[in-house]
């Protein structure tokens, strides 16, 4: 078999797998994810949750939307930041533009 035929076959197989993952897999798992999201939305509504539980190491990274301007100085006046996730997340959006 020609090398070009083998290569084109390889690329086609990859394309088919990718097409399945992008188009078919989300449909197959849609119900599971929808059930989970519905449950999470119910909890968010019932408990008044404001943030996702992603960065748990400090209070201002656990609830980035609820932090105050001084949270980075919580330990001493020169303490800018010492938690790794603090370097990965940007300040709350409301500090970037004037608002109420």
């Amino acid at each position, binding site marked *: 078999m*020609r*090398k*070009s035929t083998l*290569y*084109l076959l390889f*690329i086609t197989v*990859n*394309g088919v*797998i*990718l097409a399945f*993952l*992008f188009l078919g*897999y*989300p449909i197959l*798992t849609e119900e599971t*994810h929808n*059930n*989970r*999201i519905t*449950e*999470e*939305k*119910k*909890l*968010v509504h019932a*408990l*008044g*949750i*404001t*943030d*996702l*539980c*992603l*960065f*748990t*190491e*400090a*209070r201002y*990274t*656990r609830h*980035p*939307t*609820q932090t*105050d*301007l*001084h949270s980075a100085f919580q330990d001493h006046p020169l303490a800018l930041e010492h*938690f*790794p*996730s*603090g*370097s*990965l*997340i*940007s300040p*709350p*959006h*409301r500090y*970037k533009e004037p*608002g*109420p």
Partner: protein
Amino acid sequence: MSWMERQRSFLDFTLSSMLRRKWKNISLLLVYTLMVFLISSVVFFTNGLRHEAETILQDAPEMIVQRTMAGRQALVPLGYTKKIKTIRGVRRVKPRLWGYYYHPAAQANFTIMSLDDYPHGEGTVEVGAGVLRTWGTIQGNDLYFRAFDGEAIDLRLVKTFTSPSELVTSDLILMSKGTFRRLTGIPEGFATDLAVTMRNTRESITIAEKVSLSLPDTRTILREEILRTYAALFDWRGGYTIVLLVGAFLAFFIFAWDKATGLNAEERSEIGILKGLGWDTSDILMIKFWEGIVVSLTAFFLGVLAAYIHTFLFSAPFFEHALKGWAVLYPAFQVQPSVDAYQLATLFSLTVLPYSFICLVPAWKVASSDPDMVMRQV
């Protein structure tokens, strides 16, 4: 010979030529695939998280009112509730009691929260799955706490939040208001903050301004701001994504630049021989173009495939360390697969096209020289 057949012949020749230098090309392909994998994983993961945040936090409180004192957040007197209720457009004001509990045995911070209509009674808790994984000192069904005054309190575990909801409940410990006050020492008549529900959310900015005017020591956080914060946090231009992407893109450009700077002696000699045999410059550029396509397209397919599996089937374990930082508690969650055509097109144009064209530059330089000079390596 038809155009198609001609291109296939070029591809056959390119593949044979690449197989002669197979170890060099395999290592090139591996590095390239790794970079596409890293960039795609970051894009898929952050986009997935942004989608989750946008969907789940749609039901977050419409407005949170916090009290600030000397620039720090302070407890809100419940008397503020009545003042806010008098503002036209406010439907309900609900005091929230929540905070953090540091557990020395687990060396972890947990979010503690109380509920008005907590159904399990005093002295009990309902916890997230992450709490059970990390608490460390559970005896039977009792969780040992140390209250604000040093008193030991045993709280009975009555229920665990289901595992699929970990993205919002993993570190959560839910209890009654009485238990919460006994644990934290927050006195009666005070709350952590107030959650405000409005009759019409389109009036939220006006109501927030009125709250700030009538209670000058407060600040308001609107639901739109919560959603915008998460959109900005997982936007590819800022926050988490940019930190990871900058490194990956720099690596990619160094790699592409290195490739563009020149051909090795064997490749130069091969071009010289082909020219000597009567090949046109355009034919040589065509095989170099195919070489670029073969490497970049293969790396793109393999990298994107691996990134999809890593992110959506295995919950992105490579990013767990970055998200976790020094924390010991990390939620087990699976992001809903969501990739749009725009993302794929961007990934394709950033990874495949530049490399394919950059391969042509050194080949064109050599191919346009005298074949005799090229073969003699002058």
